Every structure is written in structure tokens, then in C-alpha cells.
């Protein structure tokens, strides 16, 4: 077997199909899109070479920076929410529920398997104000408070979006982190306990350092996913009100396909790619230092 893999031609032959598909569906569109950044136009009207005009426009476009700020805000809030709550849940599974928590684990994982659009519709109805009050406003009314137009301002719309996405994904991170926590040897925990560590101290000094690698993986997963958020925003608020909840991805999509400006849309995509790259590298480097320390 070893000899087969050592043969360069065999390795190439085995790699070729996957490499071909990868090139076809990833690299070609990426290079293609990069080319569009130097063009102006769309598939209907044709394209014109405009040099670096799109980049100059990007620097001056207040909407891009609004979307960029929203993307970062969303990524920070949702990543913190889903990883933190996921970790709390995982600790809860391991130390409180132990082996008997499969029902709870299944229930918290359940939202992960639901289609995003269905969840978004559910939350739209729950936070609805017109034509009739949804569950949340009905509860507020019952408590003597007025109805809130949750999707009427950017702040409240973001709150609903954050709540939905954290609820939807914390079960996934809980399971991911749970598997990491299971890897911590029981003897280590036992000896820590015998040394008098318990509760918060046990988590902080033993569990947290030992589960750091899987925690870092979760962070990278989460940051990358949240920077590229699209479907949940589209389905819940469609970026509104105004541009209030529009991330870069949605702005890029609208620019390219609604406003028919493929060149500028590709330039926004490039910005997003660079942001993802920088953030991932930053997390990776700092994590490597921590893990190796």
C-alpha cells in the first residue's frame, strides 16, 4: 500500500478526479469572479473594462462600510453566543446529565436540522405585530406592556436575528464541544477533584485548558460561518429595515443580481474573502500559540 502511494503517477491519478471537480466548482469561479472586479456591466448588457474603478468605488461607498460593520457585529455576537452557550451546554451534558442526557441532547440539537427558512418563518410569526400580534407581543400585552415593532428598527431586528441564529446553532456547537470534553481523561478530573478542585475552579483550570483545541476549532467554524451569513438574514429580514441588517454577502448578492452590477458585486465578494482570510489566520495563529503553550 505504502509503495502505491509513493508512486507519483498513481497518487496523481487518484487525486485527479477530486482535483478536477474542485477546480471546476471552486477555482474557476473564483478566478472568474476576480476578473469581474476589473469590469463594469452584467450578463444582459455585456461588460466593459474599467480598471480599478470598482475598488475606488468600494472605498467611497458608505453602504459597503455599513454592511461590513454589520457583518463584524453579527460575527462577534453570534460566535460568542453560539460557542459560549454551546460550551455551557456541553459542560452541562458531561458533568450534570452525564450519560443519561440523550433526550436533552437530541432536543437541543433539533433546531440544527430544521430548514433555515422554516425557522425564519417561525420567528417572523412569533415576533409579528401586523396584521396581528405574534406570541411575543401577545405576552408583552398580557404583562401590560405595548407591542413592539420588532422588524421596524435595525436594533430590534438584529436582536431577533441574533436570538434565532444562536438558538438554531448552539445545539451543533454543544455536540461538537461535548465530544471534545469526553476526550478529557477521567483520571485527570478525578485527581483534580481529590486535590480539592470543584465547580467553577475545575472548569477554569482543568476542563477549559484541556478542551482548548476543540474550542478553537469551534471558534474558527463559527466565525467563518457567521461572516458568510446569508440565508437566515434573507429569510428573516431580507436585510431590512433599509440596510439595517444587511451583511456584506446580501449586499453583494443584491448588487450583482438585483442591480445588475456584476463587477462591483465581485469587488465586494473579494473584500469578504479577504476579511474571512484575515480573521481565520488571526484566530489560527493566536490559537496555535495558546495550544502549544
Amino acid at each position, binding site marked *: 500500500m505504502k509503495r502505491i502511494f*509513493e508512486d507519483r503517477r498513481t497518487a496523481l491519478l487518484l487525486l485527479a478526479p477530486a482535483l478536477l471537480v474542485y*477546480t471546476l466548482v471552486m477555482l*474557476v469561479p473564483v478566478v472568474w469572479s476576480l476578473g469581474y472586479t476589473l469590469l463594469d456591466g452584467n450578463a*444582459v448588457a455585456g461588460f466593459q473594462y474599467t480598471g480599478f474603478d470598482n475598488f475606488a468605488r468600494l472605498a467611497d461607498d458608505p453602504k459597503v462600510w455599513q454592511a461590513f460593520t454589520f457583518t463584524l457585529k453579527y460575527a462577534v455576537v453570534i460566535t460568542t453566543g453560539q460557542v459560549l452557550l454551546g460550551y455551557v451546554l456541553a459542560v452541562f451534558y458531561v458533568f450534570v446529565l452525564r450519560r443519561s442526557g440523550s433526550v436533552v441532547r437530541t432536543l437541543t440539537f433539533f433546531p440544527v436540522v430544521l430548514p433555515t427558512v422554516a425557522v425564519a418563518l417561525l420567528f417572523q410569526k412569533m415576533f409579528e405585530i*401586523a396584521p396581528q400580534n405574534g406570541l411575543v407581543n401577545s405576552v408583552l400585552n398580557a404583562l401590560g406592556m405595548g407591542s413592539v415593532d420588532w422588524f421596524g428598527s435595525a436594533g430590534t431586528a438584529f436582536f431577533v436575528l441574533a436570538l434565532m441564529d444562536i438558538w438554531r446553532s448552539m445545539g451543533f456547537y454543544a455536540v461538537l464541544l461535548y465530544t471534545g470534553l469526553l476526550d478529557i481523561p477521567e483520571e485527570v478530573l478525578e485527581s483534580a477533584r481529590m486535590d480539592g478542585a470543584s465547580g467553577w475552579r475545575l472548569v477554569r483550570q482543568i476542563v477549559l485548558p484541556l478542551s482548548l483545541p476543540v474550542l478553537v476549532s469551534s471558534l474558527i467554524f463559527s466565525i467563518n460561518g457567521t461572516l458568510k451569513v446569508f440565508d437566515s438574514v434573507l429569510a428573516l429580514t431580507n436585510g431590512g429595515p433599509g440596510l439595517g441588517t444587511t451583511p456584506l454577502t446580501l449586499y453583494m448578492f443584491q448588487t450583482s443580481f438585483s*442591480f445588475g452590477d456584476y463587477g462591483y458585486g465581485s469587488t465586494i465578494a473579494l473584500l469578504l474573502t479577504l476579511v474571512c482570510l484575515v480573521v481565520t489566520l488571526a484566530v489560527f495563529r493566536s490559537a496555535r500559540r495558546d495550544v502549544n503553550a
Partner: protein
Amino acid sequence: MTPIRRTPRRTMLLLATGTVAALGVAACSGPADGGSASAGAEAEEFKFLVNTENTTIPDLLTSLSEGACSEQEAALPLSVETVPQTQLDQRLQLLAGQDALPAMYAAGNSPALTKELAENGQVLDFEQALADLGKEDAVLPAARSTIEALYGGFNVLPFQYNIEGIWYNETLFADNGIEPPATWDELVAAAQTLKDAGVVPFAASGEQGWPITRLISGYLFRDLGPDALQKVADGEAELTDPEYVAAAQAVADLGAAGFFSEGVGSIDYDTAFNQFTSGDAGMFYMGSWALSTFADPEANPIGADAVGFMPFPAVEGGAGDVDAYPSNVGLPMTFSAKAYGAGVDDWLGCLADSYGDASLTEANTISGFASTAQIEDPLAQQVQDTIAASDSSVLWFEALFGTQATTTSQTNAAQLLTGAISAEEFMSLVQADLDAE
């Protein structure tokens, strides 16, 4: 463990370059004719893509396919596909990019998009097509001139020929001693009276946005004159000029006074319609395409007799004429030039002959097609008379804007009413897009 030997870099580089080049060539070498999959000659269906909100035209076409156009239906069956209006533009652009527009389709949310499609050969020239069929007189001259003014040529069909104004609930007005307001101040006073009586003064869809921005353009045309928005399009004026901001402020004031229902930004087109037709709201800015709904007792529980129509009120001291109605051909339908061919031309001929009558008699809607049918509904008659008596018309807020400014205007309109953004901010946002275009 023996380490796996690495392939020399040069070989890998060559391989990768070769693969990318081969794929690039493959991707570029599409069929020379653009790969049109929906060319008329091969078509098996008369495909029609329409916005979901418009139920009148698909219903009428279905009815025609069973009656006057049954021969065409037998040769090329009608097939209707719908798309939400807010997603129509992107669908059209994607389909047009692949030369795959259906035989007939809703022509886009802004005339700018229709013009772009026309300039790139995606839209049928109806002047030529109707002449070839010997049906040049099928479209009324007034409707045709409206189309030419808006769409830069005879590029769309007037399945609707609308004027817009404010529909009001006559019963609610009578109960509260309100006369149809003739000026903006009277309109505000009437709204206050309705609000005090516990009625929502205005039904409007903030989700669609345009029923709100129409109030801004209405105010502008009455205050500054019919060329107010043409000046903006020509760069002679900006939306951020104080007299333009004043119009947005007047509409924002309506919102601040609580004249729209709570959560106006979440109210969709149908909900707004239901608010008015169920008697929950006193006034409703809408086009005359609403006639078909008003005439339907099931859709309009307050009854057609309780619905009145008034022009957008005058602004005191303003330069505009109250009889200049916003007129348009609705969200117009057009034919694909690429999918036009045998069978599709028969459909066009049949629609040219029969649509005008069917529209009036079956849907109670006034179209821009010539018709010999008599109007029976008094409300439709009133609108028809108004159209006949009016010798000037105005456009709507976004008529001369590009797609991006149109979207910005319509997606931010509800925020103007809720106070989430100020009148200045709203106008600046739209003006910024106009500047970018």
C-alpha cells in the same frame, strides 16, 4: 513511517495550469447563438412569468385560453409561473443573461430595467409585431404614448392602464362627517378625525414601500409642479433640496401622527388591501387596478358602493394641477424577442383582439387595449371618465430612477413613517444612489 514523496512543484504547476486552461476553454465555448433554450420555434408552451401579487392578468389569460384564445391554447398551452415582486428583477436579469426569458413576462420593477432589456434585444418591438399582424390599432393612443414616454419605445403591453389616487371608505367618511379632502391640510385633518374615531386613517404596505413613496411624489407634483422629478433626473435639482425634503417630511409627519397601523413595515400588499376592504382603514392610496378587487363582493366586504375615489389633494400655494393624475400601465408585461415565433405570435394577435373586452367585462379593470365593451360598474365608469377628462398626467416617485435607487427608496420608505430615519436621511440615501448611477 516513510514520508510520502512530494510531486515536484513544476509538474503540479503544469498540471494545475493545464486543468484551469482546459476548463476555461470549455466554459467559454458555449453555443454561438447564446444557447437559447426557449426559442419560439421549439417552444411547447406559452410561458408567462408574472409577479405573484398580480392575480388579475393570469386569471384573465386563463379565462381567455378557455374562450377567445382556445385555438392558441390548443397549439401552445399557456403556462404561468409566478415570482414575488421583490425578487422579480433579479430573476429577469439571470434569465436574460442566459437568453432564457419566457415568451411573456412581467417587465421589471423599474422602467430602467425594461429599457436595459430592450436595448439588449430581449424585448419584442410591438410596433413591428402588431403591424405584422395587422393589428396596429389594438392599443389606445393614450396608453401607447404613456408607454413610449416611460419605456423609451413601444416595449411593453398595456394590460392595465391605470390612474392612481386615494380610495376612501364613503361609509366611514359619512359617519364621521368628513368630506373628501381637496387639500393636503384637509387630508391631515380628515386623518385625524378618523384616528380619533378609532379607525386607521391610511392602509399602506410598508413591505412593498411604493405605496408610501407615492405619497411623497404626489406631494412633490402638487407642490412643485409636474416636472419636479424630471428635474431631479436631469440633475437640475436634488432630492436633498429643502423643497424636496419638505415632501418627505410631510409624509413622515403622517407616520409620526400615528395615521398608519402599527408595524407598517411588515404589512404586505394583501394585508393592506384587506385592511381597507374590511373597513378597518379609511383611506388607501392605490392604482385603478384595484377596481377588480373592489368589484368582487368576496374580496371587498364593504361593497363597491362604499368605495369612493379622489385625486391626490392639492398642496396650498403649490404649482401643481390637481387633475394631473399619476398614470401608468401598472407593472407592465412584455414579450421576449428571443422566444417570439410560431404560436407565440398567434397568442399576441389573440390578446390584441380580446384582452380589452375581457379586462373590462370580467375583471372590471381598464386596460390600454381598444375595447367595445360597456362598463357597468359606476366606480369603473368614474375612473374611465377621469382618464378621459384628464389632459395631463404625472409619473411616480421612482419612475425615472435606476434599479438601485428604486430599491433604496422602497425598502426605506417604512422607516420614514416609523421615524427610524428622518426625511433628510431618506432623501439623502436615495440621492446618493442617483448620484452613483
